């Protein structure tokens, strides 16, 4: 529990510390925001529209693949702890599990679903 307390404390102290440092900026370098200083930079000409848009994420099949692999990791962590005690059977089980998942990658790659441009 002590470790977790320390991790939480370090997280929040760093977070708040950085936010305070950033806020202190206005005392060192005060700024007044004007319309021409707010234009997004693409080389000196102003955009027509907001940049925020229904952004076409080209890698959506890959992101779905990732969801499945993220699940796989959940299984692997506890497996790693008991692996040596369980012995060969654990190795075979994980081997089968992984090979099944590798077929997923193979299929995706073969369908050229990892590329987008």
């Amino acid at each position, binding site marked *: *529990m002590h470790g*977790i*307390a320390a991790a*939480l404390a370090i997280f929040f102290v760093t977070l708040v510390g950085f936010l305070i440092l950033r806020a202190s900026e206005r005392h060192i370098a005060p700024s007044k925001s004007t319309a021409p200083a707010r234009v997004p930079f693409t080389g000196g000409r102003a955009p027509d529209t*907001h940049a*925020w*848009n*229904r*952004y*076409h*994420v080209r890698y*959506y*099949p890959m*992101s*779905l*693949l*990732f*969801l*499945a692999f*993220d*699940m*796989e*990791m*959940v*299984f692997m*962590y*506890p*497996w*790693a*702890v*008991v*692996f040596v005690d*369980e012995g060969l*059977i*654990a190795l075979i*089980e*994980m081997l*089968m*599990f992984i090979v*099944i*998942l590798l*077929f*997923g*990658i193979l*299929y*995706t790659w*073969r*369908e*050229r*679903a990892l*590329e987008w*441009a």
Partner: protein
Amino acid sequence: MILNVTFWAFSALAVFSGWRVFRADSMVRAAYWLLVSFAAVGVILVLLKAEFLGLILILMMGGEMTIMAVFMVAFMMNPAGLNPMTMVHRNSVAIVAGVVSFLAIAALGVFARFPVARAPVGIDPTRRLGVELLGDSMLVFQTAGVTLLAAMIAAVAISSARGRFGAGDEGSVEPDQLVPDTGAAPERVAGMQPGGPDGPRDPSPMAAGGHT
């Protein structure tokens, strides 16, 4: 004492951020408020001595909520909420449903008799989880594997516009199964000619040699 304060603080954070999810105009904000809520629940799990489950929840939700954010941005009108909007519809029904389900769950929590089973001291939950997963039969692992494989193949088959036989809307259909033209053929963007983006890349770009 500190433990209790931390627990209640993160519980409050989980509820607060859960509420913010529905008040945020921006899809990115909504997704990441949900991530905050999950992370707070993760910390609560850790405080309840389920350290592995708590941390893995945070680990997974980092990627997952990001994916949710990009999908929501891609498919929602006005994704950044530049024009304010409400994500709550049919308020009266929602309120009734919310109150009823809250009461039901609360009643369960208050009135149900939970079994009392004290866990032995010094137990390693991660190890126990591993033993449980591997266990005597391979069923857990292999079912999970096959399910995930099915999910992957289905996701790719449904979502990918391109395939090994060419783009999804032209090459993958057997000719005699082509539906007669109903005028609903997908429009192709001007300039997207074969040989440009989709065309084959030169197979041997390395093969060039110069002579002087």
